[in-house]
């Protein structure tokens, strides 16, 4: 189902979602970046804002345009909405007799509609669905949040210089995994519904037919977005190539620059590593068992009582890249990179993961785009 939603009617989409009980969340300008925040009115969206991104650098500037989504992804993907950066898993109380009572702490979640999700982030979420929804052990915390989401995607019209989703096959247009997807044009949106509830919602909106002109404009916009992406990984599956070059000098070179700070893994929409811990009240009765995002760039990630398996940055960087672009293929049937470019932009020293990977793989990457 495909309809045209004029800009003037855009607010209706939010109104209907709110009527149906959803909290709306959308991109907002906060502290110099575009990040998700509560959304009630479409004017709260980053209308007219543009971003400038390159490795280690992000700046926002306001232009004169009237578009809502004329910018590329900010630092946060959908990940924080499904995989909480820190959360309590259970609590336990020890009573006077020494008995332990374990109590599950599954989060209260409200139905949440996210407006303006990009294709790369949806692809990443599907990877995390596979990970946390692993057949034998469902993750109730992730799942509950995940199932509360209603996704309104937006095709990417203005990729950043760091974006390369086209080469990973994940963007710039959204193809699946959303309830409604929008292609923003000058006077409105082409809206496509993919789910039952998406179709119902779209049917209620005051839309018009999509005209051939609309299609033409959308097509041209898409082609331009693809053409704007000059960065690409040397291949879709670099596993063999990376493992064939485990002692490439580039590993040391990149480790000399890498801060081992883990920002890349934190912003990466597919990274799932987390650590657990216990916080106990001083009197020792009650304790909470929680988890928080961890990173293969931390010592704790590979700590084993008497030693750290990856005690040097070079080993940590190699772990990250060989996993992300290599062994993910074994685990999830594809690479762990969706081309969002965040790990380039948000690396404080601007390490370019794509360039690094390509250098290490040399000409060995499989050639398909």
């Amino acid at each position, binding site marked *: 189902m495909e309809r045209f939603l004029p800009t003037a009617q855009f607010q209706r989409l939010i109104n209907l979602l709110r009527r149906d009980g959803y909290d709306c969340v959308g991109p907002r300008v906060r502290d110099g970046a575009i990040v998700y925040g509560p959304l009630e009115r479409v004017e709260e969206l980053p209308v007219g804002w543009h971003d400038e991104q390159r490795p280690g650098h992000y700046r926002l500037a306001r232009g004169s345009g009237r578009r809502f989504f004329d910018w590329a992804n900010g630092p946060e993907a959908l990940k924080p909405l499904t995989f909480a950066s820190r959360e309590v*898993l*259970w609590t*336990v109380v*020890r009573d006077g007799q*020494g*008995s*332990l*009572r*374990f109590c*599950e702490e*599954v989060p209260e979640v409200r139905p949440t509609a996210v407006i303006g999700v990009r294709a790369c982030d949806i692809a990443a979420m599907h990877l995390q669905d596979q*990970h*946390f929804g*692993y057949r*034998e*052990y*469902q*993750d*109730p915390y992730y799942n509950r949040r995940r199932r509360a989401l209603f996704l309104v995607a937006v095709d990417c019209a203005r990729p950043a210089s760091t974006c390369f989703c086209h080469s990973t096959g994940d963007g710039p247009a959204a193809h699946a995994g959303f309830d409604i997807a929008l292609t923003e044009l000058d006077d409105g949106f082409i809206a496509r519904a993919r789910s039952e509830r998406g179709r119902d919602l779209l049917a209620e909106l005051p839309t018009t037919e999509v005209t051939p002109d609309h299609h033409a404009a959308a097509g041209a916009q898409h082609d331009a977005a693809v053409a704007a992406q000059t960065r690409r990984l040397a291949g879709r599956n670099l596993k063999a190539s990376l*493992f064939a070059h*485990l002692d490439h000098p580039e590993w040391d070179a990149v480790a000399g620059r890498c801060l081992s700070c883990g920002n890349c893994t934190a912003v990466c929409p597919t990274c*799932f*590593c*987390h*650590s*657990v*811990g*216990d916080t*106990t009240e001083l009197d*020792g009765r009650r*304790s909470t*068992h929680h*988890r928080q995002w*961890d990173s*293969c760039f931390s010592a*704790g*990630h*590979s*700590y*084993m*009582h*008497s030693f750290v*398996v*990856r005690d*040097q940055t*070079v*080993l*940590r960087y*190699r*772990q990250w890249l060989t*996993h992300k672009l290599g*062994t993910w293929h*074994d*685990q999830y049937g594809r690479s762990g990179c969706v081309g969002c470019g965040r790990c380039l932009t948000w690396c404080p020293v601007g390490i370019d993961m794509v360039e690094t990977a390509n250098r290490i793989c040399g000409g060995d990457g499989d050639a398909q785009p």
Partner: protein
Amino acid sequence: MRSHSLAQTQPNAYLPHEAEVVKFVQESKTIYTLYLRFTDPLVHANYMYDPGQFNMLYLHGVGEVPISIVSDPEHEDLLIHTINRVGRVTRGLAAVSEGQRLGVRGPYGRGWPLREAEGQDVVIVSGGLGCAPVVSVINYMIRRRERFGRFTIVQKVKHVDEFIWPERYERWQQVPDTTVLVAATQGAENWRWQVSPRIKVMEEVKVHTERTIAMICGPEGFMASAAEHLIGQGVPAASIYMSTERNMQCAVGHCGHCQFGPTFICKEGPVYAYPRIKPLLNIRGF
């Protein structure tokens, strides 16, 4: 002996069950054994596991650690864990008293290939203090001695002090068709076993290579060289199994810490057939 994991039948795999320490045995200066029973009789009755699987043990207010189950699922009612005191949680557990409550969840992972081993000659090799899990395998097989071929039990320690269960090895020597080879890098007075540098003791292992299965436990370098020795003698690589270890926080394949190349040890391991992990076994950083 189909394993029917408790964690699979309950909705939240992260949530431990209360268990009571029924017995505490100090095995050596740093090694001790906990005998546990779930306080909920229903949970206890329904809890099933394979030898070589592991549990997450939770010490109140301190944390959780993965520990192999060393009891025999068919012969022992209590859950038995033999633990080396190395860090925070294992130190804390070393101080528990009988009657104290812990949290337990599991079982997780894949254990030793005991079914595959039936009818085969079995070589069991352990290095250093990593021997607890193999002791339970040996006990398991000795209880069912008739199902297996020739036994060879190899234990290598650096220092004689690391050899903590001499009486067990002496007892196993008496078992029919069983060879026990123990060697220390550094000997001492009264040391009645061998003294040999490195892993030379493996050369004495005599097996019918075409129907041998090997199970190895110890530091990674040790396991790799033991495996190569066996391969050198003609044992097929695919018949060699080894137990791996990595930091583990969730045990259900979510936290990402136990990655070993393409695998998560908590899901596919800790016991692997050698070829599966060989490519990364001796590469620093994996």
